[in-house]
Each structure stands twice: as C-alpha cells, then as structure tokens.
C-alpha cells in the first residue's frame, strides 16, 4: 500500500508545485514508484514543471467523471520510469472534484504506487481540502515570512480538523518544508529565522531549501530540480527531505551553506 503525501501551504507562490515535483522525482530516484497528482483544477502547472505538458490527454477530472480509465490519464516521465504524473484539468471547473471521486482515485493509486504526492492548490477551498482529505502525511511548504507562516498555521488547523484521519480521531503527521530560505537575510532580520518559524508552527522540520536560481531554471526547463542538477543546493535539500520522508534519520543542514552552523543546526533535528 502506497503512502499518500499532501504538499500544501495555504498561500500561493511559496513553492508547492516545485516541491511536489522535486520530492516526487527524488523519491522515484530511490527506485520507489511515485505518482505526483495535480489537484489545481483550472490552474494546472505541474505538467509544465515536470515537462509533460505536451503529452496530456486525459486528466484527474476525466477519471473522476468516468470518462477515462486511470492508466489512460497517468503520464510516465521520460527520464525516470518510476515517476508518473496525474495532471489536473485546465478547462473544467473545480466543482467536478468530488470527495467520493477523489477517494476512488486515491484508493486505486495506493494499490499501484509506493508514493502518491498530492500537489494542493493554494487557498482553503474545495481543491485544497480534497487534496489533503485522504493523505497519510502532510508536507507544509512555508517561506520565512509572516504571511506565509500564518497561512501555513491555518492549513495545519484544517489538516487537524477536516481530513479523514482527523475525523477518525487520528492525527496526521505534519512536516515543515521551509523554502526560499536565505541564511544571510535571516541573520540580518530581514526574514524570519528557522527558529522563529518552528516556534510559531510547532511541527517537525522536514528540510530547508535555500533560495536559488537553480529552482527557477529547472522550472523553466520543465525538469524537477532533483532531476535537472542533482548536485545543486536545492536539489540536495530535496533529496534530504525525501530521505526523511521515507523514514531515514538524516541531520538537517542547509545545503550550500558554507559557514559552520552545524552546532546550531543540531537543535533542529525534530523530524
């Protein structure tokens, strides 16, 4: 049975889609069969970030409405045979997403994949709540600035209230993925520090992805950053996060950070 991970944030533009694609590609490179599902019906992006936009025939809404079979809608990545994409519909309305339909698709994916990564749309509406509804684990993507942190806090509240796990009285594991982090600016106080964010959100840290031009470059090439340049700092951060997600005990570092912060970083090993 596969594990369902929702990548969510509340706020838009913090790096959900980039992170979903990068984590998906990193997990697939561990030889674990991974599918990344785009829940952003009407504003799909994941196909572009994964470089599959010219191969989309059927999508999630088609599968939910019974217009296509699940294998017809799944797109296999050309570079990694363990990586798949289930695209969102660009033309349909998000009202086509129904709880029963999503539950059926997720149940079918669980049987065929090791990892099901759900890329949530921004906001707290239907798309976002359905993306998290059947998840086992949540990755909360947050930028080190106050509005992103507050929206993440709101999303964590919804994860604890509106998901199937919550309704069954269980608690969902939630992990913080801090993206676009700039140690210099955090040190100057221009940006919240890792400690500030952890103190406010009080969930364990999955990884710190430094701000980098490599992310934008990979995105424009249609390649997840973990496939584009595995040696780059953000790719290293995502590889670390993927290992932690898979249950490995990996100390938290900020890849690309040359100064000796290790002593300080030791205290973050919360994930």
């Amino acid at each position: 049975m596969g594990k369902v991970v929702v990548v969510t944030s509340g706020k838009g533009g913090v790096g959900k889609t980039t992170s979903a694609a990068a984590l998906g590609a990193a997990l697939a490179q561990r030889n674990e069969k991974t599918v990344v599902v785009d829940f952003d019906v009407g504003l799909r992006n994941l196909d572009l970030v994964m470089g599959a936009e010219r191969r989309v025939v059927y999508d999630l809404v088609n599968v939910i409405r019974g217009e296509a079979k699940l294998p017809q809608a799944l797109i296999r990545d050309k570079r990694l045979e363990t990586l798949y994409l289930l695209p969102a519909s660009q033309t349909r309305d998000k009202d086509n997403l129904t709880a029963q339909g999503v539950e059926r698709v997720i149940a079918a994916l669980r049987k065929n994949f090791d990892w099901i990564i759900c890329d949530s749309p921004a906001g707290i509406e239907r798309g976002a709540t359905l993306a998290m509804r059947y998840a086992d684990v949540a990755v909360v993507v947050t930028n080190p600035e106050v509005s992103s942190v507050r929206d993440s806090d709101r999303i964590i509240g919804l994860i604890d209230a509106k998901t199937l796990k919550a309704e069954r009285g269980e608690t969902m594991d939630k992990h913080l993925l801090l993206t676009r982090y700039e140690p210099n600016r955090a040190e100057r106080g221009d940006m919240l520090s890792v400690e500030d964010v952890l103190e406010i959100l009080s969930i364990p840290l999955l990884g710190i992805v430094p701000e980098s031009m490599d992310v934008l470059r990979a995105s424009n090439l249609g390649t997840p950053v973990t496939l584009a340049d595995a040696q780059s700092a953000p790719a290293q951060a995502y590889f670390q996060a993927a290992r932690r997600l898979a249950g490995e005990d990996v100390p938290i570092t900020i890849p690309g950070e040359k100064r000796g912060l290790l002593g300080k970083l030791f205290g973050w090993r919360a994930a």
Partner: protein
Amino acid sequence: MTKVLTTSRPIRLKGRSFLALVLTPELPLGDWLMRLDDLANRSAGFFLRRPIVLDVEGLEVSRHELKAFIDELALRNVRVIGIEGARASLLGPDMPPAMSGGQPAPDFEAPVPEPAIEKPEAEPVPAVQAEPQPIRPVPSLIIDQPVRSGQSIIFPEGDITIVASVASGAEIIAGGSIHVYGALRGRAMAGSMGNAEARIFCSKLEAELLAIDGLYKTAEDIEPQLRGRAVHLWLEGDTIKTSTLN
C-alpha cells in the same frame, strides 16, 4: 384613638434576599406586550404569582405611560413588586417601590409548554419563591494543542486554559478568564458574557486584540515594553490594567 403599648418589645426588621425575575420592557411598549403575550401563551402560568421586577433603565416613558403599562401587566397576572432604574419622578405612591442594588443571577429560560392546566386547588405556591441555587463548580476548558490561525475557541461557561500557543488570526473567547501558557499572538476576549472580574494571563504577549468585558485594546494600544513578556491583564473601572509576571 390611642393604643397603649403593653410591651416594649421593638419590631425587628430583617433583611433577606430572594430571587426575582427581571423584565426589561422595550419601546414601543405595545409591541413588547404582544411578545410577552406570545411567551405567556407558550408557557402558561409562567409569570403567575412570581415576583417580577421591572427594569426601566433608559426607557423613555412618562409617569402616566408607566402606570398604564403596569396596569396592563397586572391584567396579564404579572405582579410587579418593584421598579429598577427609574427616575424618582416616574414613581408615585400608587406604584411599586423603587429597587436598587440588584445582583446579577443566572438568566432564566421560560419553560417549554406544559399540558398541565392550572388547577385552582393545586398546592399553594409560596408568594415569594426563591429558586434553589445548587452549588456548581465553575467550569473550565483546557486545550493542550496549539490554537491555529482561523480557529476559534469559544467557552461562555467559564475559564479557558491553553497549554500551547495561540496563533495570529486565532481567537479565544471565554466567559471567564483566559490563561495561555505559550505565546498569545491572536485575539483573547475574556469575560465575554459581561464579567468585569475576568482576567487574561499569558506567557508571551504578542496579541492582536485583547478584551475584557467588552473593553478592548488593539495591538497598537499595547505598550511596546509588554511585547514578548509574560503579562497579566485585568479591568479597573473602564481601563485595562497590565502588569508583567516576571
């Protein structure tokens, strides 16, 4: 005619408090009486033989109108034993006496309609019936999870204790006091049901809004030296007082 006192025993005046129902009429009085009739229809005999105090504070009526209103109530078997909040000029010797110094007591719910028909031979009800007040512990609510942005914790019955932080955009509304053993970044409203004795305590004050008994302070009004400190807030008259706890 003169009477000769045979004993020198004085008459003793004793004080005793009873629970009376307070009615607060609103203008126009005609409409209000219609609503009262509706209530009386649904709970027959509810006002019968119960002591009623009329609270007319802020009600703009003349002495004549008030007298006529009390007569209307009498027609409905509502016996007014006193009038609260009336100017002296409103009351005459033929009207119930003025009352003051009432203590608030729990609100009264009109009972659901009972099929019982008022039987004249029913057991006599004492003229003044004090409601028994069972001793109940003051309820409190304890939350040991962070209160997230967008969440509201509402507990009008009593105190709320939070053994975690309250996020920006979250709100805590308590009938009693609020205790936060963590950072208070959202809104905290204590004494929300009208309780000036309620207080707010927190380990780290970063609040967006603080209110006690309807009086509030926004983040801008909070003294900057209190930010980030453990703080205790209470009400003195119409001002919120603050002090640090460490």
